[in-house]
């Protein structure tokens, strides 16, 4: 008598303990891998939210920036919670008002200076751990989880845009975590930008009635910033370095 043997389709699935554990490992990998990978590459939630089709930038009109106004600085302090303790040498300074005086003519102009969000950021190049990084939309940030506080990015920044947190910090904002022993700088209010809002400094400048700061997408030819850049002459700080900053100045 011939015994019928089940064909492949008829074979009952048997799950051994090894298979079960293997499946569990695969499931865990699927769930955890994106997060682990993000961490391993020095990423953050902010990095993931970036839109590669945009390049955020600022246009600052020095002709409209009032020398005695620091609304942008105050707004940044309040928004990101970095107000100093009265020692300008060691206090952090995400944005500052700078007066530029033409050596040849003596003409003076005032303007805010912050991280210039370079296309070729030297701070990102030199960072040994990759904590300094540039998002796909051009915003340059510090991953606070993997910054070891070596300060090489501060040595490399041509704009003095980065600060080291010298003291313990309190009353932090949940959207702008800070920590003693790490480096920080202007985030272009990335938390607001990702919500479709504009940076606090731009909002404050407009509210103060100066309208010296315009925020927008440099890759969108129909954005206000692109139109103005196309219409009027503008420049970057340290244009000799050819870093192509996202922050542009006019009427310097």
């Amino acid at each position, binding site marked *: 008598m011939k015994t019928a043997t089940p064909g492949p389709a008829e074979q009952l699935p048997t799950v051994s303990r090894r298979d079960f554990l293997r499946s569990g490992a695969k499931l865990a990998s699927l769930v955890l891998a994106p997060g682990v990978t993000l961490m391993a590459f020095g990423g953050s939630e902010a990095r993931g939210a970036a839109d590669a089709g945009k390049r955020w930038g600022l246009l600052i009109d020095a002709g409209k920036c009032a020398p005695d106004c620091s609304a942008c600085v105050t707004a940044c302090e309040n928004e990101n919670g970095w107000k100093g303790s009265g020692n300008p040498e060691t206090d952090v300074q995400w944005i500052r008002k700078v007066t*530029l005086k033409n050596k040849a003519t003596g003409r003076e102009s005032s303007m805010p200076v912050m991280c210039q969000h370079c296309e070729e950021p030297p701070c990102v190049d030199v960072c040994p751990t990759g904590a300094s990084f540039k998002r796909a939309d051009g915003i340059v940030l510090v991953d606070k989880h993997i910054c*070891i506080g070596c300060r090489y990015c501060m*040595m490399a920044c041509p704009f003095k845009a980065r600060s*080291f947190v010298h003291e313990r910090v309190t009353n932090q904002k949940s959207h702008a975590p800070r920590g003693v022993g790490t480096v920080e700088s202007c985030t272009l209010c990335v938390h607001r930008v990702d919500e479709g809002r504009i940076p606090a400094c731009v909002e404050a400048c407009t509210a103060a009635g100066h309208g010296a700061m315009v925020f927008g997408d440099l890759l969108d030819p129909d954005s206000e910033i692109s139109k103005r850049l196309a219409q009027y002459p503008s420049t970057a*700080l340290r244009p000799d370095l050819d870093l192509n900053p996202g922050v542009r100045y006019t009427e310097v």
Partner: protein
Amino acid sequence: MAIDRTIYREIPVNFPLAIAAGCLAALMLCGLVAFVYIEHHGHIVTGMTNQVVWGMPHVFAIFLILSASGALNVASMASVFDKQVYKPLARLSGVLAIALLAGGLAVLVLDLGRPDRLIVQITHYNFVSIFTWNILLYSGFIVIVGAYLWVQMDRSVHPKWVRPAGLVAFVWRLALTTGTGSIFGWLVARPGYDAAIMAPLFIAMSFSLGLAVFILVLQALCRFSGCLLGGALVSRLTGLLGLCVGVVLYFTAVQHLTNLYAAEHTGFEVFTLRDGGIYTILFWLVQVILGGVLPLALVLGSAAPVSMGRATVASLLVVLGGLAQLYVIIVGGQAYPQELFPGFEASSQFQDGQVAAYHPSLPEIALGIGGVALALFSAGVGAKVLRILPTNLSDQNLAAKD
């Protein structure tokens, strides 16, 4: 006196050695306390600011790292360039190199804003960063010099491997010092850096600093252990030191003359050479005169072989000059204001356009000296537990090897 074979022995513990070890341990403890103090309070208790972000710890750390690669030169001269007279010193040269590098790296790590995140540095690498390259170069240096020592000390290894190992170590140390110089040479942001000459300048500095430290450590160890140390050997080493000091002066002159020729760098040169206050004083008085011209005069000025005393003084002066040179490069380069926009003077409440003040605090100096103590203590422990120091370095004993 009969000529001995080169016999290596662990140095004996005696009262003077114990006193020296105790002093070094005390300095290491001070460095450790300083580290804990800075770590607890933040860098607010140092003299470093947002303008001068690297201070005394970096001066000491880079001094030790340069000395480490330079200290290996004695071994390289024996193995790579076949100068047999230096062969008995090759083991000490290797151990001292590793010890100095360990001391320098300890200072660098302990000065980090977040030294507790060292594991992050070990697991996250940005290979575009010259810092990352240096981490690999430093780690590789310890491994390669360790292997080089093993090849020399393990009798089961055929001596034919000594030269290839020495050659790899020599090339690696050149790469290491190139990397260290490029930490500054590749910085486009500051007018005091951004110069390719930084790499060869740092190599030249490593030659002179490493040799000076080697001479001092050799003299000290021989005094503690009772090892006979030949005057001609020390004179020969000191003569070589004079050559290295000359090369450093040459590169320094080229560095500043090149800058003076370019109008965009004139401001920085005027600052360093004339108007820089402490930096100008350190440059001319300590770096050039005390650390350069005077050691050269001490070495070249004696017709007879350089005496032990002169060798000691010349080496100490070179160390002093090297520290001053690194202070001028590292701190002076940051103190000079950055140019925000060519052709414009910048001013702000954030010290734009101003020469930044820097007053090193006691904790950061203690941290740096603690690193030096760690390096010397480690070298001493190496000489105590390993057979790296010959029992007889007298001239008669070495003459046959020349």
